[in-house]
Structures are given as C-alpha cells and as structure tokens.
C-alpha cells in the first residue's frame, strides 16, 4: 500500500510538471533581457513596460471586457429564462430542447465560427441589414455560445429545488410572478451566478469564434495575441502570459479561500 502511494505521488507530480513547466518557462523568460527565447542574458522589466505601451493589446483588452460582460449579461438573462422554460416543459419537449442546446457546445468551434460569419456576411450583402463585423457581431456570437453554459448551470438547480416550494409560495398568497421572483429565483441564484461566471470566462478566453466574427477594428485580446505571435517573436507575450497567470491564480485562491470560510461558518452554525 505504501509503495502504491509513492508511485501515485510520483505520477501526479510528473503530470503536474508537464502541465506547468511550459508556463514556468514563459514566466522566467518574461524577465529575460535577450529578445530571443533560448538563452538567458539577464534580468529586466522592459517587456512589462513595453506591454503597457502596446496600444493594440490595451485596446483589445478593453474590447474583451466589453464583449465578455455584455454577452454574459444577455446570455444569463436569456439562458435563465430558457432553463425555467425547459424545466416546465413535458418530458418529450424538454429533451428535444436540451438536445438542441448541445449543438453549440459539442460542435467544433471552427464550424460555429464560420457559420456565424456566413450569417453576418449574408445579412449584410443579401438582406441589407447594416451589420459590420465588429463589436456587435462579436457580442452576438458570444451570447450564442454562452447561453448553453447558463442553461446547464441553472437547470440542475431547478431540478434540485423541491417542486412544492413554488406551490407553497402560491399557497401562501403569491401570484405566479411573485412566486418566481420571491422563491424560485433566490433558490436558483447560485446556478445563475455560476452560469454567468462561466460565460464570462469562456468569453474572455474565446479565440476561434471571435477570429471569424471580429472585424479589423474590434480585436479582442486573444485575437491581438494571435496577431502579435504571428508577426514576430515577442517577449511582451511572455509578460502578458505571466500577468494573466498571476491574476487567474489570485482569483482562484481568493475564491477558494472565501468558499472555505463560508464552509467554516456553516459548520459553526450547525454546531450551535
């Protein structure tokens, strides 16, 4: 049994090295004076300073935030309503709609990307809709792939809910609308928040669909990164990776800490 444990640790460690070594290399080289990536020639902060003066990256960062927040808000509204609708459907219809909802999740991103691109192009050229590739098309596309994540976060919360709580609210004098916002919505709130956060994350990170649906003036961060990577070796990207990694790490640690504290509080409360 002991031997097993050692082997397990070794294996887990090896996979972790595989996962983190490349990131570690990026971080180290973000402080490397030499522009070429192979050799270490001395410590510098230059790449971080250059990054903060890189207009393409900075404006792309702003765009990314706008697209992520706007698309996630809309996706959360539409998706939550959809989840409530699906939950209230009969078995057959609910299953059909859920299957439909898998299409954007399961189909290759590149196909989502080119199909949306074709839609937008045809809307402009054939139907006379004045829609230019830009922030609007990005937001529309992001809403499309974000809605399913909201739905699949909210649906389980609805299923966990005791069906009778809605009836109980009616019984105690709520009309159906009040019953929804006083009882159902607060109960599924954790699912709605999780769906929203997941939508923001996917939206921030999306490259492929944005690649096909963005215009020349409306780059998001991943597209700007792609542009920089294609053109030349750019150590600023090392610096950017390092910043993103540290931010994500801090966010996760904070999130984790607060959840631990919440757990503690709850345990304490139960003891009382």
């Amino acid at each position, binding site marked *: 049994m002991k031997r097993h444990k050692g082997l397990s640790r070794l*294996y*887990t460690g090896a996979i972790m090295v595989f996962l983190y070594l490349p990131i570690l*290399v990026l971080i180290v080289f973000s402080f490397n004076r030499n522009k070429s990536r192979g050799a270490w020639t001395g410590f510098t902060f230059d790449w971080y300073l250059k990054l903060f003066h890189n207009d393409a990256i900075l404006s792309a960062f702003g765009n990314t935030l706008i697209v992520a927040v706007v698309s996630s808000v809309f996706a959360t509204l*539409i998706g939550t309503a959809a989840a409530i609708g699906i939950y209230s459907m009969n078995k057959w219809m609910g299953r059909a709609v859920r299957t439909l909802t898998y299409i954007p999740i399961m189909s290759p991103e590149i196909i*989502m990307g080119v199909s949306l691109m074709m839609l937008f192009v045809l809307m402009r050229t054939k139907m006379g809709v004045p829609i230019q590739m830009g922030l609007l098309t990005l937001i*529309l596309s992001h809403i499309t792939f974000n*809605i399913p994540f909201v739905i699949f976060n909210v649906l389980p919360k609805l299923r966990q809910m005791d069906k009778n709580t809605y009836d109980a609210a009616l019984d105690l004098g709520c009309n159906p609308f009040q019953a929804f916002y006083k009882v159902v919505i607060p109960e599924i709130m954790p699912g709605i928040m999780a769906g929203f956060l997941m939508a923001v994350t996917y939206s921030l*990170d999306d490259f492929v669909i944005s690649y096909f649906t963005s215009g020349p003036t409306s780059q998001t961060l991943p597209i700007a990164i*792609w542009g920089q990577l294609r053109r030349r070796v750019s150590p600023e990207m090392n610096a950017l990776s390092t910043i993103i990694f540290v931010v994500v790490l801090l966010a996760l640690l904070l999130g984790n800490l607060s959840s631990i504290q919440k757990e503690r509080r709850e345990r304490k409360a139960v003891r009382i």
Partner: protein
Amino acid sequence: MSKAKYAALPYLVWMVVFTIIPMLLILVFAFTTPDGGFTIKNISDVGKYTDVIMKSIWLAAIATAVCLLLGYPLAYILSRQSARSQQIGLMLIMLPMWMSFLLRTFAWMTLLEKTGVINRVLGMIGLGPFELINTSGAVVLGMVYNYLPFMILPLHSIMVKIDHSVIEAAQDLGAGSMKVFSKVVLPLSMPGISSGITMVFVPAVSTFIISKMLGGGSNLMIGDLIDMQFLGNAYNPHLGSAISLVLMVIVLLCMSVMNQFDDSEEMEGMLI
C-alpha cells in the same frame, strides 16, 4: 407552472437565428455554386484533400489515446484522495486552462524551437540540435497539452461516484487488484471514458491553431483548410462549407459511437 415553458421562447428564437440557420447555410453553400445552382462539385473537390483529412483524424486519434493513457491513472489516483486534496488537484489541473490556449501553445514554441530551451539544454550535454518543432509529433504534443484536462475532468467526475464499498465488495468476493480494475472500476468508468474521448477528439480534430503554431507549413489539418477557404488566400466559402460539412460528419460519427456508453443527463454534469 405550465405557462412558464414560454420563458424558453426568446432562447428558441435565438437558437434558430444564430445556430440553426447558420448551420443550414453551411449545408446550402456546400451544395451550391457561387451563382446559386445546385452542385456536388464542392463535395467531390473535398476528395483532393483526403490525405489532409486522414492525417487530421490520425493525429487527433493519437492525441486522444495519449490523453486517455495519461489521464486515466491520474483521474483514478485523484478520485481516491481526501475531498480537500481532490479540490486542490482539480484546481491545479484546471488552472492552465484559464490561460489563453494561444499562450499555452506559444510556451511550447519556446521550448521546442531549434534555438529553444530543450535544444539548448540538450546542447549542453552535447546532443542535438533536434528538429522538434514543425513535426507531427509537436502537433500531437500541443493537442495533448491543451486537451488533457478535458480528459481528466469527466473521468474524475465519474470515478468519484464509484462507491468505495463496491470495490471492497469485489475484494471481499475474491478479486485481486487487477480483477477489481478490469471487472469493476473500468466498466463503471466507461461513461467518463466516452465523454472524455469526445471532449478531446472533437477540438483536436478541428484545430487549426496548434497545427499552425507547432506544425509549420507541412502539417495542415482540416481546420487549416477551412480557415484558408474563408479567411485565407484560397477564398471559396462553397468549398469551405463542403469541408466543414465533412468535419461535422466526422465529429457526429465520433459522438454517436461514444454516446452508446452515455446518456445525456450524465453529460450535463460533465460539461460543468
């Protein structure tokens, strides 16, 4: 609550406009000429790229197999840890996913280049330099690195559901550790394996970034073909649609084979 099903209406309209119609556009474009006549020439033209398509499937299949071989033991080890260690382990596995996959792939460029870190290190002990980047192997490595978490997460979520007493029961009934694995753990984890395979194979077979960054010009994949037809020099959305259609068929085939082991209710949990 029967009227609540109409809450899904905005979503359904959205789905039709931004998912169903775009997908149908691909279908229509694949079978038409630029002036709108019916043709099967686009589809037959895809035949010229048979070697690229076969190579894409082959590379994605290898990457999927490697992910399964690497990920399965890790998922199993993880699922037998305390809840706290599992939480930390999962976080460590997911953390790299939160960084743009462009940057993660970029990190491997730094490592694999002719003047990259690995060749430098090998050079110090008098080996190389080796041709590491711009090979099929590099593409597979990039896929494994990017998509390994997609294999581990569904495997883990199904394995934690395996009740430990089931394993004890098997031991009690005389099964050795090999038998416990082959007769109990493996069959019970089949749904996780199948959804892990889908979740790695689908993005791997349709990628065009990894092949561009790590494969050089010589390792074209289906995604690159589609990209060239829509945003590249070869501009021909009709041929691009035909290739997309072929990709969609490959993906659907993979999913329908894998779905035999799976039911959709389970999948919801895995995606999240």
